[in-house]
């Protein structure tokens, strides 16, 4: 989206907006590399420790694997573009480009920029929803899997690699204006204006500062709570579920139930597939409902397109001439055709 805004701005002669767009796009590529690999490493760690990658059979891993949980949460927050981390910085640049486009570009790209702006916001919300679900279902709550597979924390070197990536995410988040020095030479190749003249300079420095402020404030609040509770009694007990006594892990919100309201909202885009079995009697002996959302693009667009193409090709192959007369006929027709077309 960033590159798109950049190109549109270049075509309408607004180098400043273009510089922002390309800077955002390029920085996001690096950031994406960081937090996506962090999330995958964490997923690998979870897979190694618990033996399965089925989200509905995980849960409560944070107790046994606190450091992996921390890294995964940092990764999740980064990918959702939340402030103290690097995801936000690059998305911030793209937003700046979009806002710049909204303010200064001619009317048609302007309205496109407004649409893009709203869509990016909605996507940001959905991304944080998706990764909140992932973090919650995997690491938080009580363990859903049977007792014997007790997950252990992964060995140190795995944690180290994840830690480094998480630190990098936070580092870029707080880096602020130093990023400009890195980005500027690259962006200069795209647009004449240097990043320093655009809004990015002021923006990035303050974003870095305020992210630092956020981390500082959070730390201060953490200390104050600890200080407040030092003389108070801190008890632990079962989760207060409005008094319901027999709480089992399976009663927790699973990943699919967490996503269910969202699927409802986007029902006619996602087109969820629902399998229901079991009798519909008043007290059915066994009832099973399973619902999942296969990727609609693949199901309706790519699938039929490819199979259709393959069938068409094989039909063409069968219809191929096999006798030598038809070979010569082909030459004859080409000859007459071309002569007629070019001479007639």
């Amino acid at each position: 989206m960033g590159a798109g805004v950049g190109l549109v701005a270049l075509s309408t002669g607004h180098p400043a907006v273009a510089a922002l767009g390309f800077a955002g796009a390029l920085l996001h590529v690096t950031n994406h590399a960081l937090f996506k690999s962090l999330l995958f490493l964490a997923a690998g760690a979870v897979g190694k420790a618990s033996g399965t990658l089925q989200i509905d059979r995980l849960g409560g891993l944070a107790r046994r694997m606190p450091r992996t949980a921390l890294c995964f949460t940092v990764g999740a927050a980064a990918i959702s573009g939340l402030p103290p981390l690097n995801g936000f910085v690059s998305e911030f640049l793209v937003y700046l480009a979009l806002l710049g486009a909204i303010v200064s570009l001619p009317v048609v790209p302007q309205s496109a920029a407004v649409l893009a702006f709203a869509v990016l916001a909605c996507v940001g919300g959905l991304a944080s929803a998706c990764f909140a679900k992932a973090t919650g279902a995997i690491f938080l709550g009580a363990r859903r899997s049977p007792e014997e597979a007790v997950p252990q924390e992964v060995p140190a070197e795995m944690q180290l690699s994840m830690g480094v990536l998480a630190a990098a995410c936070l580092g870029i988040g707080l880096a602020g204006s130093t990023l400009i020095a890195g980005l500027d030479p690259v962006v200069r190749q795209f647009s004449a204006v240097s990043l320093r003249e655009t809004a990015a300079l002021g923006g990035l420095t303050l974003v870095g500062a305020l992210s630092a402020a956020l981390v500082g404030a959070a730390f201060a609040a953490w200390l104050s709570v600890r200080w407040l509770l030092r003389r108070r009694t801190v008890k632990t007990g079962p989760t207060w579920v409005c008094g319901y006594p027999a709480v089992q892990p399976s009663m927790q919100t699973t990943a699919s139930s967490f996503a269910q309201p969202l699927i409802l909202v986007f029902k006619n885009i996602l087109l969820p597939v629902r399998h229901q079995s079991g009798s519909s009697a008043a007290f059915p002996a066994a009832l099973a409902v399973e619902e999942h959302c296969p990727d609609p693009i693949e199901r309706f667009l790519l699938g039929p397109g490819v199979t259709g193409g393959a069938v068409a090709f094989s039909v063409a192959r069968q219809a191929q001439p096999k006798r030598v007369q038809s070979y010569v006929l082909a030459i004859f027709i080409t000859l007459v055709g071309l002569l007629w077309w070019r001479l007639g």
Partner: protein
Amino acid sequence: MRAALHLLLFLVFPPLLMGVINRVKAAFAGRRGPPVLQLYFDLWKLLRKGAVYSTTTTWIFRAGPVVSLAATLVAGLLMPLGGGLPAPFAFPGDVILFAYLLATARFATVLAALDTGSSFEGMGASREVTFSALAEPALFLSIAALALARQSISWTSILSGQMAAWHLFGPAMAMLIGALVLVALAENSRIPFDDPTTHLELTMVHEVMILDHSGPDLAMILYGASLKLFLLGAIVVRLAFPFEASVPGHVALFVAGLLVYAVVMGVIESTFARLRMDRIPQILIAASVFAALAVAVILVRVNA
């Protein structure tokens, strides 16, 4: 000096709003209702209490309220209060940082809710996430409209200074305020979208997420919620009352505006009932449409 006044007003005033709203609802219900300063007493009481943590929770549960309060506080640093008090930090693009800080706060609260492992908190979290995903476009479209109208992308320059916007974009401003009010109601989980007073698990959204918090954590959450209400209110108030005045005049105007805002909020809460869960997305999409229309009108005006 003005920054100090800004911080003081921002830190002290918000709990009063909650008190006013509850007082208005009580008046509607024909009862005296809790004293206006009730929230201050609650906060003071909670801060001096101990805390009970569930066995299934981890450090994330403790970090939830802390991070959400910190994020809301930093967001406050970006928001100018009325015409007179510019925000301590203002830079092009702070509108984005403001919105995403609120998103961070929400993310932290949701994670804390999921950590408890109770199905109610999970349900509340999933609803909160769904509604906010739909509210964000409305908020961002309003920001776009304001940016377009005021040709700037920083809260301070949008909201303070000569607000000559009314006569130029009259209708658009009205729609903007409508959309922003709806967003504020959704974000602060007021009646039409969520019921802050209920304890019936099936209906709660925001309340259920903070079920398991206690002591200082609960205090932080309540204080954070009031701050958020105050911030969103500041935007609406400044748009609703765009009059010019001297600095003290602005401050007085702003405080009065907020009180009116709180009363209006209370009136809305007592005259509406909570909507069915599947109606809420429709209302939020309506809010986005309002904001989009506002943008369209402003686009025409700006380019005409």
